């Protein structure tokens, strides 16, 4: 069973994505802060991270950088509620993001992005 870590400071988004991926047979862990995210990534085997890059108390790009530094082969899909401009995308790619999605994307399309990324990182 693939294990997904969801990092978002909004509990409603964490709960929704947990429910959605569990119903589709994934194991899911969630983190509301960068520290929780790093602890989980370091302590349990995770196959993929979905990371909100606009966290309330810190820069999500730093979280991306830190996770990729410790776990270079762990794919991280980043998401935002405001969409992506070219600069943000460029920075995310430089820091090792495996993909990006908008929070407003229909859940089925998010699932397709997860499938694509897991296949790529098999």
């Amino acid at each position: 069973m693939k294990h997904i870590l969801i990092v978002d400071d909004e509990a409603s988004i964490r709960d929704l994505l947990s429910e959605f991926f569990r119903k589709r047979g994934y194991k899911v862990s969630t983190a509301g802060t960068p520290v929780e995210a790093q602890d989980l990534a370091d302590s349990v085997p995770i196959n993929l991270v979905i990371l909100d890059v606009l966290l309330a108390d810190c820069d999500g790009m730093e979280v991306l950088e830190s996770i990729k530094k410790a776990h270079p082969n762990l794919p991280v899909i980043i998401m935002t509620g405001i969409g992506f401009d070219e600069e943000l995308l460029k920075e995310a790619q430089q820091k090792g993001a495996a993909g990006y999605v908008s929070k407003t994307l229909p859940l089925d399309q998010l699932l397709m992005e997860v499938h694509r990324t897991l296949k790529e990182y098999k």
Partner: protein
Amino acid sequence: VSVSAPGAGPTRQHIAPSDPELRARDQRLEALKAVVGRLAHDFNNALVPILGYISLAKEDLEPGSGASNFVSAAENGARKTERHLDTILLAVYPHRKFKAVPTSLNELIQSEVESWKRTLPSEPKIEFSLGLISCVRDLDSFQWQTLIQHLLRNACKALPKGGRVQVSLVRRALDESGAAEIGVKPGPFCVMTCQDDGCGMSGETLDRCCEPFFTTQPKNKAEGLGLTIVHSIARLHGGQLRVRSEEGGGTAVEVWSPLD
């Protein structure tokens, strides 16, 4: 009368306008856009779990059942709100969906004008004339299509009894003082102008025409986002918007886009 009002976040092409009135108007517009953008962003985020749980609920409901129909109705309402928020976010924060690639601007304008003409009723009679130079530059074609459509819509609304709309695309160069006046870096520009011989705007309307939700139309007829969208897209592409208008004397909207 002319007005120029930067917004949608500065880029490397922009500087503060030298005219104190324009500078003050810029600041007011930036503040308004920031408030509207924040509210739209928060509501947009709040829709994510609503739409997400609706989609999960639908999976567990019998299609065609009463509960399923209620959930579908809720989804339609939420999707309608999402589309409205998308329009507002385009008006104040077009960066969120921006992909610029080399595009023929004259071909894009021509195609949009032709499509627009086909949607118009035969009366009132509106004549269109085009004068376009050839111009290829990096741009987001979806955003520019939206920009052109809003300019044409505004021009036609100003002509309830019919009239003329002229659309032109020319090259211009701005020197230090001309560029500083409107708040851009000097250099070569392509300028798209959409001009009508309609009712024009009063000084007060002209002063506020780029503000989000400002409209002189009845509230159920217009959202008041057209020129805000045009203005934000022009700015995002490194350019500037200038509006010249006189009550009873028509309106000309110029979109200045840098070519270097």
